[in-house]
């Protein structure tokens, strides 16, 4: 299939097959088919950075996803005025600044071009528009990015343990209630928080879901009320939504865990069990959560794809937050060794 490419700022023949192969094997685009990539190419850019240029500064707001097509860049973190090299060189196929695509995110490090760098850029604006025009493409891009984020978390886990972070064995809470949400007609009343299913929609979900979408979501949920220090076991890729209270995300370290981040209201979170139970979650306050079992997640994905896309978007936002918090923890631990 011939691709009609006319990218602004790009030399006419820059997107040869080799470049397209790089894109299709990079994490963000690995799940796209050729024709899906072709749909978005006209709205993307090829940008050149000269050797020595600062690609992005630590703390700078991220603007657009970049995939390296050619060249090499170095990631450096500045910690209390000291330079620390955290990662190996970024090379072709690697991506960065993904956080800015779906949430306000700031670069955790400096990136400096070691060689002339050619990058493929997908802007935040266009990525947002993809949600309306080609939501499935947007979803696939996010899926690819999330896979890489888990790998980064895995590396961070090793570094955090090596740096000697304090780990905690939390005592399990023995009191928790699991209450199923029945049909909307029964309108269960969450007495302790003066919430009904309707009011929950008005104060929390209406900003992000239509009423119909919310009904689909809520009909696949269970309500969980927990005490503090309750560890949510997650062998099955269940998804949780925080309605009240707060949950601490942890990096697992053998039988104990290391605190990384605190998630609050309207955070959706999960962990992928095939990543060796990398993450665990413990309530740090008494909490009320909605749980979507992994089976129900699959049902929503099969029967109401647009709702699943929204849920997945929220999961990604939380994961980016956790990944950035992990990077901050590494910085803090390194600062203690300076």
């Amino acid at each position, binding site marked *: 299939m011939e691709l009609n490419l006319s990218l602004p700022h790009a030399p006419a023949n820059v997107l040869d097959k080799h470049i397209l192969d790089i894109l299709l094997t990079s994490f963000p685009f690995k799940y796209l088919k050729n024709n899906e990539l072709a749909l978005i190419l006209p709205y993307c850019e090829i940008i050149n950075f000269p050797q020595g240029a600062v690609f992005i500064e630590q703390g700078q707001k991220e603007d657009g996803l970049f995939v390296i097509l050619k060249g090499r860049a170095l990631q450096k973190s500045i910690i209390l*005025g000291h330079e620390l090299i955290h990662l190996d060189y970024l090379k072709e196929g690697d991506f960065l600044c993904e956080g800015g695509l779906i949430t306000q995110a700031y670069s955790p490090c400096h990136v400096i071009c070691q060689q002339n760098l050619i990058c493929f850029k997908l802007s935040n604006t266009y990525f947002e528009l993809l949600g309306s025009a080609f939501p499935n493409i947007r979803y696939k891009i996010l899926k690819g990015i999330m896979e890489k984020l888990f790998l980064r978390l895995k590396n961070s886990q090793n570094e955090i343990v090596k740096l000697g972070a304090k780990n905690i064995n939390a005592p399990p809470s023995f009191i928790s209630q699991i209450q199923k949400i029945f049909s909307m007609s029964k309108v269960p009343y969450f007495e302790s928080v003066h919430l009904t299913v309707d009011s929950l929609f008005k104060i929390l979900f209406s900003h992000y879901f239509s009423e119909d979408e919310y009904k689909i979501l809520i009909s696949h949920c269970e309500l969980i009320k927990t005490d503090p220090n309750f560890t949510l076991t997650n062998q099955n890729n269940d998804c949780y939504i925080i309605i009240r209270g707060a949950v601490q995300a942890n990096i697992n370290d053998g039988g104990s865990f290391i605190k990384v981040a605190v998630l609050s209201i309207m955070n959706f979170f999960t962990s992928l069990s095939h990543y060796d139970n990398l993450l665990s979650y413990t309530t*740090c306050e008494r909490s009320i959560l909605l749980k979507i079992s992994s089976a129900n997640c699959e049902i929503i994905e099969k029967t109401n794809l647009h709702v699943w896309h929204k849920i997945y978007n929220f999961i990604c936002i939380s994961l980016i937050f956790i990944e950035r918090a992990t990077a901050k923890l590494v910085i*803090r631990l390194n600062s203690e060794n300076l």
Partner: protein
Amino acid sequence: MCRVLTYLGKPIILEDLLFNPDNSFIKQSYDPNYMSYLLNLAGFGMVAWDSNSPNKNLPFIYKSDQLPFYDENLRNLTQKINSYCLLTHVRGVSYTNREIVSRQNVHPFLFEGTSLALAHNGDLYDFNKMKIKLLNYIDEGLQNKIIGSTDSEWIYALLLSQLKNLNGSYSFDEIIIAIEKTFKILKEIRYELNIRVTSPVNLFLTNGDFIAATRFVFDFGWPPKETSENQEHLAYHSLWYTFGECYENSNNTYVMKPGPKKCSVIVASEPLTNDTTTWIEVPEYTILIARLKNETIEIKTKDLNLN
């Protein structure tokens, strides 16, 4: 929603903390980078120790309910005071005539007869209901010293009541235990009165020998029923720190200079510069405490888990 800053280390002209950096402490009173839904216009206060001043164990104390950015006297003072330890606070309250803006309500609080000062960034929900029960835990001699209407002053009196002596030096553990006891009492009283609403308690303490700060919220994630659309005030209150050799102007920006000796530390609600790369966020539910030992800053952090 209040901004607080505390400093310990090499003597520094106060202007270099309060006025000169691009996100200076005084600028945070009218244009904070964080929690910007509420300006901090209800008073400015500071306690600052200068070892070259007479009665060097007594700090300079300055408190005013006026706007600090218009305060010429304050500016002049900060150009003259060379302090090794500072605690300063700008007060932010909601825009209603129910709030009392007065010098008596300006932090930091420093009762006569003690060397320990406290400032608070936060708000105990339904605090007025707690007062009677709190009296049971506050030493009688301290009850009479409370003259303002803030929850912060009561927290201060409660914390002092957990210490064996009101003067002299304290070990890290003594301070941590006093803070934990204070928080446990507050939690217990809240529980008895069924007050289960988000209430941030970022405390800042110093006596000139050490500085301590907490990043903590009671019942985080439990907004009041009457919550408005603005959720920013329900976010976990920020707390940052930086440490190194000295805080100074370098290439037109203020930065904690790295060096072989770490002898200065700043703990603050937000960084003093828009560039935050030389600052570190304090984790949630944490106590941080620092002191100078053999001309080097020693820092300890501890998780605050009251459950």
